[in-house]
């Protein structure tokens, strides 16, 4: 079918695209009435006839091609961006001029430093109105309705002040240039400079506001850019694979050359845009008020629109090919039928990119960045029945506190929220008229408060829909006092260190103390920051660091059954006032216990002491533990049977052994104390029990198996780097997160580290930028009359500077009513991550075997549902839509993941740790641990390389994880998230050996090499650039192991080659056959 279908597509598509590209809306507007038809019909037509026409390509290419290439900024300022659409509808004819300014005014902001100059022109154009004019602004841009309001003419500037929050702008009259100051001043009041350091320059954030708020890490993604063109053709032509006996070429070769030949990928994608526009046009009508864009408007500006889209938002991070493709023509590509048994090269050449929801372009443009907020189905089914039929999990993956490079920050005395469901106003609300807005979650109509009528960005009055709150899906508010139950707490850090004999033996104390000493000044906090230390073995040692003492005083409490605080006031001290004492302590601490013979460990009492110490303020406890707690409350017994061979049904003790840690964690959580656990141990430590302390208090868990300072230098390096990141990363205190969704959807399960305090409220004692969350949802009421649904995650926290802030992310997704649309919008990575979390739950509540079966069934169910409900033509083989083609591979990878594998003997703690990681890591890092990246490392070239801040980073193609891909005369780099392997083939090119590794021959490669020498050769610098780049993009530090055949780590390396047959697990091809059997049964 695919062959014929595709041929037809290209032919038939001609008319299709032509229409839209020339008068996009023209064609569509006729369809408007039908609404639904465009959507569904669109899909159908795609599968059967499809749009992509070669014809119009050149035409459009001419215009659009540049856009992706063009530096975003330029296109930004040049072309009127999003807001234009709003202001235009009233009098398109009249408006052009006014339209221009706002965008420009936006684009000024990005670099606050740079601002003045760029600002100058626009403001002038802009401020002209306000000054003289009194009239022009109100009249021109905003819908006439506004001008009716109280002397609008005079108002804009003068009125502005009244809203107290903006009173900074007092004399806007003066303003021509001032435009610049206001924005900055705006975001700056709240000492932005100070606050946001990690986040981004706040002023810019302001401005960043409009355009690329979502786009933060384009660089990282754009790595994909060079190659993107290739993917579709490649995967096609990769086609013929060895394993498949049957007719490997059959339908493949058909499309293969076809696609490569006929559709020039980039061109093709661009052409695809119009259909999307259409589709959107369809959606559009649904949106009343502000969102409506008269068709007439659409066509003239269509080109402009397209060009903007590319650089903006999420599109920017996608590879152009995918961006264009998924934006525009997701359907055909995503639903392309792939016969997995025949197609071997299913990996995209670059990163796997999330699908883009089929939303109107301007909504999509401001939609929440997929790195922050992702849904497993980018098209939400209308009914639960439909969802059940699709057999795909519905859920959200969040990374709410991610470090963002641009984040708009708003200070406002009155944060506009829906009166009934308390949703924060967001870009996806609709303005019923100038004075009222309709909540997109509960559909209640709310009044727009007076202050909100004034837009501080453009300093105009009467255009609430241009406020940053309505222009940004990710925004941060500085919360007024209503959002505080008590005065914001200071940053409080307590370190609880194990100093038993075992701990001293590992030598971790030196590293911790050293890192702390180095980073004492960069601990996030302000002048109120407090710090304290507790050490413990079978007794608990407190340290009096009171100002005025000449040296730290150790207070020993040996009554661990009833812990008390010896001197409650002086154990937690102000860091800046007592820094010298703290430094003294840290320098002396490692030696203090060097000769200890105490082997017992009373972790429980020490934690209780820590909790007592912090409970009045809240804060963070960092616990370093190296052995099983043996005395006092919370003591544990070893449960792991040594040498236990894991069989599916027999992995036990995944459950905690006691509820002590859970109870304590909940107490901590109630008092805003989070506990982070660092476990450095060679023996079994019962992480499943200990981990509860972090899991329910919203902490994080770090595990360094077999840590020893001398014996495992690589581990030490990793520990050091992780510590540095841990100590200096941003932190939010006394946080809560609420996840709201449109009425009809409800969240029923949560994954991650936190305590669910009430139905949708997660209590996070601390929130850190490396924490990911996931939730599962169900559809409780049918979403029949909705075009789109929204999800909002609002994170209220106290910054380390003692400010109460609210970070709000809003994601909007379309609602669809056909199975094929649901499949087309499936996000395979998100699905995998959610399934992994669900499987972890299952293995704890039921058994590991159950969890594994459930994973396999998930793949079988969804593929068979696709086969029976979506595919019209049945053909042999294992068929999957292109967007889900990686699902079986990922499921297999999960089955071989340390958390779920049964083949290799896996230590219980490592398994439990992997499970924790699966539940609490953000998606991109999680995917790396599940499905590592494998690259050929000895022929890196600058072709298609990425340029990041003047460094050239080669972008090798990702290879399948199979021994078959390794060759003896090459070297390969494998990126497994927390560890990197550089595998050297036996006959590896000697040039590579000398130029990169600095050794003469293969035999001279050391068996445990953890670093690449810094050689001054092109090869060396290329590979080091690649490795550095890979490392920079994640918050933890992956260690590098150079390995060869004789290396002890080789077995570990081979375990990651998940496509191969292993001890008791299927190879990828066998797994596919198994799936096929089950599906066809």
């Amino acid at each position: 079918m695919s062959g014929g279908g595709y041929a037809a597509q290209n032919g038939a598509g001609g008319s299709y695209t032509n229409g839209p590209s020339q008068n996009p809306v023209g064609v569509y507007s006729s369809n408007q009435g039908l609404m639904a038809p465009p959507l569904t019909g669109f899909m159908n037509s795609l599968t059967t006839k499809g749009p992509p026409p070669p014809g119009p390509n050149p035409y459009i290419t001419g215009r659009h091609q540049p856009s992706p290439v063009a530096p975003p900024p330029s296109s930004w300022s040049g072309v009127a961006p999003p807001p234009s659409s709003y202001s235009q509808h009233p009098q398109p004819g009249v408006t052009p001029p006014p339209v221009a300014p706002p965008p420009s005014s936006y684009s000024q902001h990005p670099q606050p430093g740079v601002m003045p100059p760029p600002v100058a022109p626009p403001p002038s154009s802009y401020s002209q109105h306000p000054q003289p004019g009194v009239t022009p602004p109100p009249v021109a841009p905003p819908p006439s309705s506004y001008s009716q309001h109280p002397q609008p003419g005079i108002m804009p500037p003068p009125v502005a002040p009244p809203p107290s929050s903006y009173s900074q702008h007092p004399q806007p009259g003066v303003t021509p240039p001032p435009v610049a100051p206001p924005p900055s001043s705006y975001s700056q009041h709240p000492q932005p400079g100070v606050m946001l350091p990690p986040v981004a320059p706040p002023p810019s954030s302001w401005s960043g506001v409009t355009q690329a708020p979502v786009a933060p890490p384009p660089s990282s993604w754009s790595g994909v850019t060079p190659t993107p063109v290739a993917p579709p053709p490649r995967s096609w032509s990769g086609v013929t694979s060895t394993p498949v006996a049957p007719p490997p070429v059959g339908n493949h070769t058909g499309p293969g050359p076809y696609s490569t030949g006929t559709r020039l990928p980039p061109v093709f994608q661009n052409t695809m845009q119009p259909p999307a526009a259409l589709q959107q046009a369809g959606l559009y009508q649904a949106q009343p008020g502000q969102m409506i864009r008269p068709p007439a408007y659409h066509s003239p500006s269509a080109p402009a629109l397209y060009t903007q889209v590319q650089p903006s938002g999420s599109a920017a991070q996608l590879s152009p090919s995918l961006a264009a493709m998924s934006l525009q023509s997701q359907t055909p590509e995503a639903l392309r039928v792939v016969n997995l048994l025949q197609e071997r090269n299913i990996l995209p050449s670059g990163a796997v990119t999330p699908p883009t929801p089929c939303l109107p372009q301007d909504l999509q443009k401001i939609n929440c960045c997929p790195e922050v907020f992702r849904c497993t189905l980018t098209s939400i089914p209308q009914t639960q029945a439909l969802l059940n039929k699709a057999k795909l999990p519905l859920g959200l993956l969040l990374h709410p506190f991610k470090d963002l490079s641009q984040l708009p920050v708003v200070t406002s005395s009155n944060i506009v929220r829906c009166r009934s469901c308390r949703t924060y106003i967001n870009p996806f609300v609709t303005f019923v008229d100038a004075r009222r807005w309709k909540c997109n979650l509960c559909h209640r109509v709310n009044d727009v408060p007076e202050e909100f009528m004034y837009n501080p960005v453009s300093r105009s009055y009467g255009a609430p829909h241009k406020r940053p709150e309505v222009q940004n899906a990710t925004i941060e508010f500085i919360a007024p006092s209503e959002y505080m139950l008590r005065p914001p707490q200071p940053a409080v850090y307590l370190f609880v260190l194990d100093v038993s004999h075992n701990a001293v033996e590992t030598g971790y104390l030196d590293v911790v103390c050293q890192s702390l000493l180095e980073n004492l000044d960069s601990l996030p906090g302000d002048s109120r920051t407090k710090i304290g230390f507790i050490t413990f073995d079978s007794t608990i040692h407190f340290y009096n660091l009171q100002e005025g003492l000449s040296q730290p005083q150790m207070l020993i409490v040996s009554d661990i059954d009833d812990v008390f605080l010896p001197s409650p006031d002086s154990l937690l001290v102000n860091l800046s006032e007592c820094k010298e004492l703290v430094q003294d302590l840290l320098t002396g601490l490692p030696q203090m216990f060097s000769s200890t013979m105490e082997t017992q460990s009373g972790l429980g009492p020490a934690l209780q002491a820590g909790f007592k110490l912090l409970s009045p303020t809240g804060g963070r406890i960092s616990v370093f533990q190296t052995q099983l707690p043996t005395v006092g409350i919370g003591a544990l017994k070893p449960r792991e049977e040594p040498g236990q061979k894991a069989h599916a049904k027999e992995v036990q003790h995944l459950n905690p052994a006691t509820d002590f840690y859970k109870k304590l964690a909940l107490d901590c959580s109630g008092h805003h104390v989070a506990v982070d656990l660092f476990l450095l141990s060679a023996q079994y430590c019962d992480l499943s029990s200990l981990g509860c302390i972090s899991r329910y208090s919203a902490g994080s868990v770090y595990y360094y198996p077999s840590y020893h300072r001398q014996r495992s230098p690589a581990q030490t390096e990793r520990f050091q780097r992780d510590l540095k990141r841990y100590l200096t990363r941003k932190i939010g205190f006394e946080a809560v997160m609420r996840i709201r969704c449109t009425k009809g959807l409800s969240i029923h399960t949560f994954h991650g580290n936190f305590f669910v305090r009430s139905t949708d409220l997660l209590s996070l004692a601390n929130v850190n930028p490396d924490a990911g969350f996931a939730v599962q949802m169900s559809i409780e009421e049918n979403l029949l009359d909705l075009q789109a649904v929204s999800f909002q995650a609002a994170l209220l926290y106290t910054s380390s500077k003692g400010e109460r802030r609210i970070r709000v992310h809003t994601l909007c997704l379309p609602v669809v009513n056909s199975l094929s649309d649901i499949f087309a919008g499936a996000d395979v990575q998100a699905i995998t991550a959610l399934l992994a979390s669900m499987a972890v739950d299952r293995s704890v509540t039921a058994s590991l075997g159950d969890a594994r079966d459930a994973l396999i069934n998930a793949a079988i169910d969804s593929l068979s549902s696709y086969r029976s409900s979506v595919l019209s033509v049945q053909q042999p083989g294992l068929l999957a839509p292109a967007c889900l083609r990686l699902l079986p591979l990922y499921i297999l990878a999960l089955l071989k993941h340390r958390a779920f594998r049964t083949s290799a003997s896996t230590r219980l703690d490592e398994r439990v740790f992997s499970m924790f990681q699966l539940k609490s890591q953000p998606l991109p890092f999680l995917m790396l641990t599940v499905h590592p990246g494998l690259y050929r490392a000895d022929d890196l070239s600058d072709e298609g390389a990425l340029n990041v801040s003047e460094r050239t980073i080669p972008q090798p193609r990702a290879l399948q994880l199979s021994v078959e891909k390794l060759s003896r005369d090459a070297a390969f780099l494998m990126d497994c998230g927390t560890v990197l392997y550089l595998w050297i083939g036996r006959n590896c090119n000697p040039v590579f050996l000398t130029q990169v590794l600095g050794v003469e021959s293969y035999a001279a490669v050391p068996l445990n090499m953890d670093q690449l020498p810094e050689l001054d050769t092109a090869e060396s610098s290329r590979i080091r650039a690649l490795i550095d780049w890979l490392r920079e993009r994640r918050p933890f530090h992956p260690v590098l192991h150079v390995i060869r055949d004789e290396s002890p780590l080789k077995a570990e390396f081979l375990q990651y080659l998940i496509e191969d047959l292993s001890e008791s697990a299927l190879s990828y091809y066998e797994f596919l056959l198994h799936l096929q059997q089950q599906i066809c049964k």
Partner: protein
Amino acid sequence: MEAAVFILSLVDCCALIFLSVYFIITLSDLECDYINARACCSKLNKWVIPEMIGQALATVLMLVSMHWFVFLLNLPVASWNVYRYVKVPLGNMGVYDPTEIHNRGQLKSHMKEAMIKLGFHLLCFFIYLYSMILALIND
């Protein structure tokens, strides 16, 4: 004698009805966000054992007085209570665990269970009442 047994069961049954209502009210409070999970679960866990004892008492009474039908009616509920209590994983804080109650629709299933028990106890109430009256008349 017969009458005394049923009067006692009647009293026991009333207590169980009140307990079920209390469970339902507390769970629905949690559903509506009036109390937090921690408070709700500690409240409910307190009453799990009394409920178990109350139910066991009714069952034993029926067994001793050899009312086989009512005994068999009570037995499954009593054993369910015991089973539920015994099956609590070590790491959980009781039958109602605050960290789990919002997950995997547990709240709903607890609610359903409480409802079913309420219905059951009401049924029992009328059976006891009827039997008591019958016994009093026969006396």
